[in-house]
């Protein structure tokens, strides 16, 4: 499979490796929708387990976006990873898997990563008017949107 993907996309597949018995692919961000589509249609990864991200503020491309896929037919998991900068967005995979809707909304909520083509990209766990994206590394652990707390909860101190 890896050979086939590499043959098709060349250096777009940055890395195809295995760590502790778990396979992962590192893919160029522009190739993401195609690769995901191929993985589902041709390689039978029909179940999107999870979409998540990680923040590395010291890197130029600050965010890792990670798709965890599973194939019922092969009983196999694979992780697809891409790196993007803060200003960049990722194509949405809602047209490939229905699951992606809420999972992408959560990534947006927690990291502020935008997904192009998502039907209703808005916050899911935090309130709509909240400022900041808590899972970014520059967001403190006790940090809150004090203004929101003052206005909506009527707590003077904002904590």
């Amino acid at each position, binding site marked *: 499979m890896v050979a086939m993907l590499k043959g098709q996309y060349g250096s777009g597949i940055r890395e195809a490796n295995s760590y*502790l018995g778990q396979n992962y692919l590192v893919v160029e961000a522009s190739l993401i929708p195609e690769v995901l589509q191929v993985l589902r249609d041709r390689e039978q990864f*029909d179940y999107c387990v*999870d979409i998540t991200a990680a923040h590395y503020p010291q890197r130029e491309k600050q965010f890792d976006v990670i798709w965890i896929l599973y194939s019922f037919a092969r*009983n196999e998991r694979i992780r697809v990873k891409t790196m993007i900068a803060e200003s960049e967005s990722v194509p949405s995979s809602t047209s490939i898997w229905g*699951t992606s809707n809420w*999972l992408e909304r959560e990534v947006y909520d927690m990291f502020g990563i935008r997904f192009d083509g998502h039907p209703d990209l808005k916050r899911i766990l*935090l309130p709509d*008017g909240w400022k900041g994206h808590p899972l970014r590394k520059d967001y403190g652990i006790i940090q809150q949107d004090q203004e929101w707390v003052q206005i909506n909860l009527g707590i003077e101190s904002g904590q």
Partner: protein
Amino acid sequence: MTDATKYLSRLELGQPDQTFLDSNELIINMGPQHPATHGVLRVILKLDGEKVLGTECVIGYLHRGVEKIAEHRTYAMFNPYVDRMDYVAAVSNGLGYCEAVEKLMNIQAPPRANYIRVILTELNRLASHMLWLGTHALDIGAITPLFYTFRDREEILKIFEKYCGARLTTHAFRIGGCQYETYEGFETEVKKFLKFVAPKIDEYEELLTTNRIWVKRTRDVGVISAKDCIALGVTGPVLRASGVKWDIRKAQPYAAYSDFDFEIPIGEKGDTYDRYIVRMKEMRQSLRIIEQAVGKIPEGPIMAKIPKVIKPPVGEIYHSIEAPKGELGYFIVSDGSTQPYRLRVRPPSFVNLQALDMMVRGALVADVIAVIGTLDIVLGEVDR
């Protein structure tokens, strides 16, 4: 303007001067303070008379930022936090987390610890299913099963209490194995419990399985096909009730599950009644697993050799287990320090809840309650 009013103003409401005979779309808010939403779930319903045209879930009322907390705690310190997600199945959460960290460190829990883990996790699955059955039946209008299931669930909680001192948020396992050796008489007590509970499950079934009201309220309600389940990432008993024979305990065995003989019950139609039957059968299978495990707990240590300070090497790992509600996964990124760089929890309830909209479209308002119940969500896990 709050998000609710914004949402309401977006939809066209009927004009006040129209008579009640005109059919209008109606927006009704359900929750977050509603006894049948199993916590603080808020659902905005769009109705035509009593028919549901669409729903929107508003969640996050119980958000505590578990994933953020993880980045600021050591691996061992974060362990008790996972119990607070799915608080009716805390043991499963702990098992998933401990195994994920063990995998990241490339160590194995000793066989004795694995057997203890299996017994406690399966007991917890029983407790979780019992709580689900009691509350689900109560939502639909049958009060009696609640008393029955809570009475019997108490016996499981007593075993947990004797084992580790806690009833709900157990923190039963540690990274590398178990903290506590089984107490004296643990095996006989578990065996006694198995004898006690098997006829009780028959009792629940006598109350409900052929009960006409129960069958009418659950048959053909909230139907979801296997194809839709997979597309929406729905796992656990809901997926199996739609006919997909998939259970992580069999597909990718963890702990000591490969040692035991058990079946994966499946349904045919994927309606609420099938999901009920699947969970009832699962309870019996859990009894079977416990029965096999408790007779032959191997001797030996209960803790693997792990360093005093847990510092997994740099790398990423995804590990998932079959929690009572579906696939519970942990994705951990380690930077080689004592704290996780990033810890992601893949919660089954959150993903399963997304299927609610598809399952209730075209159904009646009362069926929404039945479907929320049958999805078996815990808001502590949905919101984290």
